[in-house]
Every structure is written in structure tokens, then in C-alpha cells.
């Protein structure tokens, strides 16, 4: 437990800032791809896309059926280390609503054990608009904590601080002829787009058109996921694909 904690907590390099600001609040992006809101004892994740493998299998691509396991175990490690009171999944938690009923027993038990003893919120996304009761927790379309709105897709409202998913942001930088492309938390301090957490989820470059209307671009930072740390990178250093 302690070991896991040490492994997970120094999430940003010591010389760097470790927290992003959203509105008046300070939140900690984790290298594993989740966002920790310590004052609220809340852990935020987005776009788990559980059972994406099974959904593709139904279309004839028999991909390794371990994506749900991989995603939940990674989430489990974070939960074990931080023991949050609340977990909020910001939508597209299941690749398809129907899949939510079809978790294999082991995966289902794993999910149950993660939910045990804490408040669990499933925010609905475009992939999982109708979650069955069997998934446990509270199903909702959005959630507001301390004036920060958590929802799946970004809204048109630029004034209210919000944390969203949906877009699967990745950032790309280059230096000395080497290019690094990683999932990232994209933020302009008023809005934050979470990286996709799921094992089979692809990514969309932050420089893509889809991100253009979301941010005050001179404020943008991409918090890029390294192996053991998250690195805040200035928007001006980001490259398109």
C-alpha cells in the first residue's frame, strides 16, 4: 500500500508544478491518466470505453478480450493508492450501453470491489447514454462540484469552469529530432479536457480543429503523460500530427 502510494504520488517532476488550476480550484493530474481533486476526495477519469474489444469482436475483429481488465486494473491501482471518497467517470465509460450488462464475472467483481465503500458516479456519454442499473453507483448526465461542472462533452458556456472528456486529447512535441506523442490533459485554466483512460482508445491531436473553439489559446497547457510523471507543456510548443 505504502509502496503503491510512493509509486503513484510523485506524479510530476519535482521541479515542476504538480497541480492544474480550474476556476479557483487546484487539481492534480496523474501519470496514469486520472485527475485527483484532493479537497473533494474525488478521483476523475474519462472515456474508459470498457468492452470496446467485445464491441469490435461483434464486428469480426477478435481483439484480445483483456481491455476491460487492463482498464479496470489500472483504475484499481490508483484507487488503492488514493482511496478517494468519490469516483467520477466522465462518460463513454462503456463502449456501448448494451455491453455494460455483459462484463465477464471477474471484470464485474473487480468493478464492484472498486465501487465498494465510495460514491461512484457514471456521467453518461454519447457511447453509453442508457446505462443499466447493474453497473451500480449513480448514473447522471452531469455533476457540479464546487461550481465546476463535470460532463462528457464540452458545452458552449465559456464562463463556467468545466471538466470534460469525449475528445481523447493527445499532444505532440519535438526536440533534437525526436518526437513524443502522448495522451494529455488539455486545459486553459477554465476548461479541462481529460485524456481517454481506456486501453483501446485512440487519440486526437490537441491541434485539431475540434479543439479550436474550446480554449483561450494563449492560456493553453497540455499536461502530457509520461511514464511516471505528468509534464506541463506550453501550448506554443505543441505540434500538429
Amino acid at each position: 500500500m505504502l509502496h503503491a502510494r510512493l509509486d503513484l504520488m510523485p506524479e510530476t517532476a519535482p521541479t515542476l508544478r504538480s497541480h492544474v488550476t480550474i476556476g479557483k480550484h487546484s487539481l492534480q493530474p496523474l501519470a496514469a491518466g486520472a485527475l485527483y481533486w484532493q479537497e473533494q476526495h474525488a478521483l476523475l477519469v474519462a472515456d474508459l470505453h470498457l468492452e470496446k474489444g467485445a464491441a469490435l469482436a461483434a464486428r469480426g475483429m477478435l481483439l484480445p478480450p483483456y481491455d476491460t481488465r487492463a482498464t479496470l486494473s489500472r483504475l484499481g491501482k490508483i484507487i488503492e493508492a488514493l482511496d478517494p471518497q468519490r469516483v467520477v467517470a466522465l462518460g463513454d465509460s462503456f463502449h456501448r450501453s448494451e455491453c455494460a450488462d455483459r462484463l465477464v464475472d471477474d471484470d464485474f467483481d473487480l468493478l464492484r470491489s472498486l465501487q465498494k465503500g465510495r460514491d461512484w458516479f457514471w456521467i453518461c456519454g454519447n457511447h453509453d447514454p442508457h446505462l443499466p442499473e447493474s453497473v451500480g453507483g449513480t448514473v447522471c448526465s452531469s455533476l457540479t462540484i464546487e461550481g465546476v461542472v463535470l460532463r462528457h462533452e464540452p458545452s458552449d458556456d465559456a464562463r463556467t469552469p468545466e471538466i470534460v472528456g469525449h475528445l481523447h486529447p493527445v499532444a505532440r512535441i519535438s526536440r533534437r529530432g525526436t518526437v513524443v506523442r502522448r495522451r494529455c490533459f488539455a486545459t486553459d485554466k477554465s476548461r479541462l479536457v481529460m485524456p481517454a483512460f481506456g486501453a483501446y482508445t485512440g487519440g486526437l491531436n490537441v491541434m485539431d480543429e475540434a479543439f479550436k473553439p474550446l480554449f483561450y489559446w494563449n492560456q493553453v497547457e497540455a499536461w502530457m503523460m509520461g511514464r511516471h510523471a505528468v509534464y506541463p507543456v506550453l501550448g506554443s510548443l505543441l505540434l500538429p500530427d
Partner: protein
Amino acid sequence: MRINGRTRRRLEEEIARPPSASLPKQFAAWFSSRSWRPRTHQLELLERVQRGADALLIAPTGGGKTLAGFLPSLIDLAGCSETRRGAGVHTLYVSPLKALATDIARNLATPIAEMGLSIRTETRTGDTPQSRRARQRVLPPDILLTTPEQIALMLSHKSAVQIFVSLKCVILDELHALSASKRGDLLALDLARLRTLSPDLRAIGLSATVARPYELSAYLAPQHKGTAPATHFAEIVTAEGGARADITILKSEADLPWAGHAARYALPEIYEAIKAHKLSLMFVNTRSQAELLFNELWQYNEENLPIALHHGSLDVSQRRKVEAAMVDGKLRAVVCTSTLDLGIDWGDVDLVVNVGAPKGASRLAQRIGRANHRLEEPSKALLVPANRFEVMECQAALEAAEEGQQDTPPTRPGALDVLAQHILGSACAEPFDSDLLFTEVTSAAPYRDLSRESFDQVLAFVATGGYALANYDRYAKLKRTKEGAYRVAHPRIAQQYRLNVGTIVELPMLRVRLARLKGGALKPTGALAGGRILGEVEEYFIEQLAPGDTFVFAGEVLRFQGLREMDAIVTRAHATDAKVPAYAGGKFPLSTYLAERVRLMLAERRHWAKLPEQVAYWLKLQSAFSVVPSAREMLIETFPRGQRYYMVCYPFEGRLAHQTLGMLLTRRLERAGAAPLGFVANEYALAVWGLNDLSAMIRNGRLSLGDLFDEDMLGDDLDAWLAESNLMKRSFRVCAIISGLIERRHPGQEKSGRQMTASSDLIYDVLRQHEPGHVLLKAAFADAATGLIDLRRLGEFLGRIAGRIRHSEVSRVSPLAVPVMLEIGRESVPGDAGETLLRETAEELVAEALGEDALGDVKQSPGGEHAARQT
């Protein structure tokens, strides 16, 4: 594959036996009408096939090889031609190249017409219209000329039974080029299937000279598990060797380049050679070299000689035009890649020019064979080394050719991803019994040692994914019938299979397009696309570039400006030093055999006399400044340069093995505290650089070279590296496509390529973590071990040099090290380099943040430009 002495004697007796076959009158008359005499090997082959044997004919180019292959069938068909109509294909001819099948069909028409035979021949390739394919199913021709992929396609239809039920003969042309490859694996499986459909068919293989004919002959014979002798061989007929080739190495007055592959220095001499001959074929190793040489030649082409270009990325219609012009004698020279390696008769070629490294003795012999298709006259070849090491390689290849040495690659076990494709194809044709299919599969030589366990794993993979966590049963691709046979679960699966058939998975390529500069600034975006295409480059290379990076391509330093659709837009950079060197190495590694000869040549001063003055002088400089290693030693040089410390070693094991070695060495150097930053490899050497003084570390015993190069690097270090290696991911992607796990890209879907690459990487990560023993990972590893990471060779190398490392500490770069230091295509240390880069970039943010006031609090409206980007 071993053969015992008795088998060998039996085989040799058979070779020695005089031919007893004679030609029927009709054929004898035709031969005399052309004032030809049937050649001994043609009659020998005829005799064996008429006796019902499978046979391999080994003959040099111009030996009437193709006619020999077809003679038995033509004679057989001449006797029964009228009654056969619609009875199914009698003879199936398979060629690795579409163009070759078309060419042979044309050549075959002459004897058939002149003898008035009633034999229908047709071709079937990817270009054959759907209507003709449908007709071929209903009314099959007597002789069908096609490619391995088309056979797999035909066999996936129910109609295969009618088409092939009376098949008498399969002719496999250019077998040496097919056998030790995934295409060869697929063809072997298809041959086994054809034998099931028509048990008394005979297989004839036609091949150029190879290093181990027996291995190749086994490919043609059905193998039976558990019976003696262990391996079955086809009979071998060897044609008398033609006249010895007349090979020279180009001598030039100009300075010999230290590195590079362009051979620009030799253009005047090459041009003179073209002028002195009727038609010259100029072989180079890569497409970009072909483009470059072609452009350079035209700049030199004062007399406007008709010089053409032929390589695999060119449009098909363009290639056809060039081929037709060659046959019609309208061209004086053609710059080409391996697309023209194989046995097509392209008119009166009287000179072959090999520009760059020959790579292997057999490969060179093949290319030289393109000149002069008449057996009795010597082929004429000119070797043009592009740099100093290549001079030695050319000399080694020339000596090997004089001695008639061959170095074709050894056979290897059949690939499991290909087997997966074949199993699915079998089910598409009709339900199969797994025991019978296993027997059939193991009768194919590449799969003769396949265990039932592996077969069942592959079968399970095809059916349900074969995962330990079996929750895809309801999505199974194969289901069992009441009788227990496997059938496809849905017709859609057969359709998908037919779209994905084949084993050739092209790396995604991007065009490199030169944009024009106006007044020093780029034109607005729209106008950029109008520029000239310089060539194609692998997508993964471009992914490593950021806009503004410079790289070498097509002999120029270019600046990468960005991607537009499938084009990488570049401008000319007036820099001499490219920031990111281009990947322009050959696709074929230097053969072990030639490498050994080069090492010997280097080691023994008496050989230097045979080398051009400049090269000999270069080696003398090396010997004075540092060390010239003996043949059994490996030299390591360490020296400082700039703010970095370099280590250059000379394994001579080819670029692939060197790259793997570079990956593993940097891991070990990292642990030893040498802080390595990157490495670069060429065919002969490997250079690693880092932040710490390697010379000092070796001097004071902090770094032991023996330990560094210990064979144990192929244990944990390899495992750890493979876990995140892009090369392994690339191998996995290929296996995933061939095996049908993910679908291949089709024209028009190019844009999805980047996503697909990403997702096959994600699949790899998940599979490796949760089921490391999965059969597809085994397949990917087997590929990587012989292919991209060349483990087999690396293992042999480490064994060879153990205790024989010679260290030379020098004050600066040595003459021998210059080529690799100039080499292009460097790799950075994996893993941690990415982290370092992230950290540095993030720290830049900190620095900028200190000056934050300057930016002020000016907010821009959402939807505005990416203002920050324009800085």
C-alpha cells in the same frame, strides 16, 4: 534440413543418369524449324516428369528454363487436347510477379501457334477483370498462369474442386525468390491443398543457382510425418552453367565518397558505359536511390538518350510503358530496383550496372543474369560502389561470382500468421476436418515440423481469437458442424478474407513533395501542393519529424514543412548538416557470407592491393591512426567529439542486427552510467554516443567491454527492450494483418492508417501484458528474430567475438569510423529519452512562466486563431 549420405548418392545417381525421354515428332519438327536442338536439361526434366516425379530445375538465365518447365505439359496436352475442354486446369504456372506471368503467356503463344496445338492458355492476376475470372471458374483454361495470391483466392471458393480436380502439373517459377518468405509459406500450403484436390499432380520448380539445392527441392515434394527418410526431396536437374559473367568494378578518377549511396561521383563513367552499349539495366537498392540516379543521369544526358525509370512505387501504367519500350528496343538504359530482378525477358540487355552495395553474392548473380539472355555468351556487368566500404563489398562479391559461390538465405519454419490465413481460407471454401487439414498442412515442407499443439493454437486463434479468456464464442468466425467440421460462421467472413488475402503488407508510405519557395517565404497553404514529388518515404520516418526539421532525402537536404493528405511537404534547405538524417538504407541486409569476405579483405594487407588506390590509402591511414582489426576480432574505438563521447564498433553484421545491438547496448551503457543519448548503424558499423567519457570509463575499469558485449544481453535486456520496441510493434502489426486479426488498408482508406497503426500498438500492449504466450506474439517474435531485429545473426555475432574485442582509444574520429558517423537514420535511446524530452520541454514552460507578465492577461475569444502557434 539434413540429408543422409545414401539419399545424396541416390539423388546424385539420378542426376548422372542419361535422359531417356525423346520429343514427339511434332515437337522435334518445331525445334528443327527454329534450328534449335532440345537441351539436355530440357529432356532430363521431361523424362522425370513423365515418370511421375516432382523435379527442380536449376539453370542460369538464358538456359531455356521456362520452355523446359512447360514441355511436359505441352506434350501431354498435345496428345489429348480436343477431349479435355472444360475438364479443369491441366497446368498451373505460378510466378512471383504479375508481369512475369503475362510475359510467359506471351512467349508460350509462339510454340502453341506454330505447332498448331489446341491448347488454351490464360493469365489471372490482380488486374484480370471480374468477368474473365468468373468465366475461368466455369470454363477453366488448360494452362493457367498466375500468382500465389490468386491461387489462395481461387482455393477459397467452392469451385476450386472443379477447377483443379484434374490438375496434372504445377510449375513454380523463380522458386528461389519465393521459398524462404511468407509468400512462399502461403504457396507451399496452397500446393499441399492442390495435391489433396488432385493427388497425382507433379510439381516442377524452376530456379536460379542457389546455395542449397536440396533444401529447395524439398519444397516441391509432399512431406509425410513419421516416415523415412525424414525429409522428402524432389529430383534435381541442373543445367550446364553458361559462360562466365564478365564483371568489372568501375574505376573512377573522382574522389570516392566516404558514405552515402548515391554514387554521384561516377556519373560520367556510368554515362559513358550507357553510350557504349545497346541497352543497360541499372540496378539500385532502394526506390529513392532509383529516383535520384535517374534524375542525375538526365541532368547529365547531353545526347538525350532514352533513359527510363522502373520501380515499385511508380504507377502501373507507367511501368508497363517502360517494359514495352524495352522489349521494342526503344530504350538505352533503365534505372530500376528489384522489380526487374526476376526472369522476365526484357529485350536485348547487354550491360547490367549495379549501383551501390551488391548485398549478397546470389542477389548480384541474379541481377547480372539480366544481361544477355543467350546462354553461351557472357553477361556483362559493371559494379559501381557508392562509398569506400562498398568498394570492398563489390570486390568481395566479384570474387564470389568468379568462384561461383552462392549465399541464398536458409529455409525457416513456416510462419504462423500465414497458417492462420490459410486455415480461414480453407473454411471459406468448404467445411474442413481439423485432423485432415493438419495432415495436409504438415505435408508442406515449411510446416513439416509444425506440432499439433501449435496447429491447434492457430486454429483456435482463427475460430475465436484463441484467448485464454474465452468470451468471444458468440462472435466466433469458425463454428463446428454437426459432424465436427469447421465452417465459416457467416458469409461476410469469407468476403472479408478475400479482401485481405496475401502476405505482402506494405509499410505505409508518404510521398515527399517539394514545395517551391517564393521570396524566401512559403506560399500560402493551397499553392504548396503543386511541387514535384521527390519520392516516397516510410510514414514512421515522417512521424519522427517536426515541422522545420531538416533531413536528407533524394540526395538533398530538405526541410520538413508539414503533412498534407498523403504528402510530406518539404522545401530545399540550404544547410549542409541535416538535423535528422533520412532513412535511406537498403532493405536487404549485407549477407553473412559477403560480410565475412569483407572482414577478411580488411584484415589482410595483401588484399588491399586489389583495391583502388584511394581505398587502400584510407585503410593505411586507419592502420596508422588507430587499428585495422584482424578477421576474427571486433574493433571498438572510443573518442570525444563535440560535447559528446563516441563508441564505434565494427561487427559487419548488417544494418538490422546493428540496430538491435544499438538498442541493447544503450540499455547496458545506461546501467553502466555512460548516459548514452543515441546511436546510428550502417551495414558495417555501429556508433553510440553519450554524455560520459567512455574512453576514461574503459581505462579505469568502470566499463568492461567483455561484459558489455556478453551474450547475456539476449536475455533480460532483450525482453525488456522488446516490450516497448517499435520494431516489435511493427512486426506485430504485419502479423495481425496477415493473420486477419485486423484488416488491411485498401486504397481510398489511407487516412485511417495512422489510427490503425496506433491501435495495433495498443492491442500489442494489452496482449503482451495479459497473455504473453499468445500465438500471435509468437508469430511476431519469430518474424522479428529473422527480420527487423535479426536476432539470429546477432546471437552468432556475440558468440563469434566473445574474448576477441580489440579496443582502440583515439583522440578523434578515425578514418574507418567516418562512414558510420556520416550515416543517416539515427535512433535515440528508447524509453528514457522520451521522458527527458518531456521534462526539458516542460521546464521550458517554467522558464516562460517566469516572464509571464510580458504575455499579460489579454484573452482571446474562443474560436480565434491558435495565436500561440504563430510565434
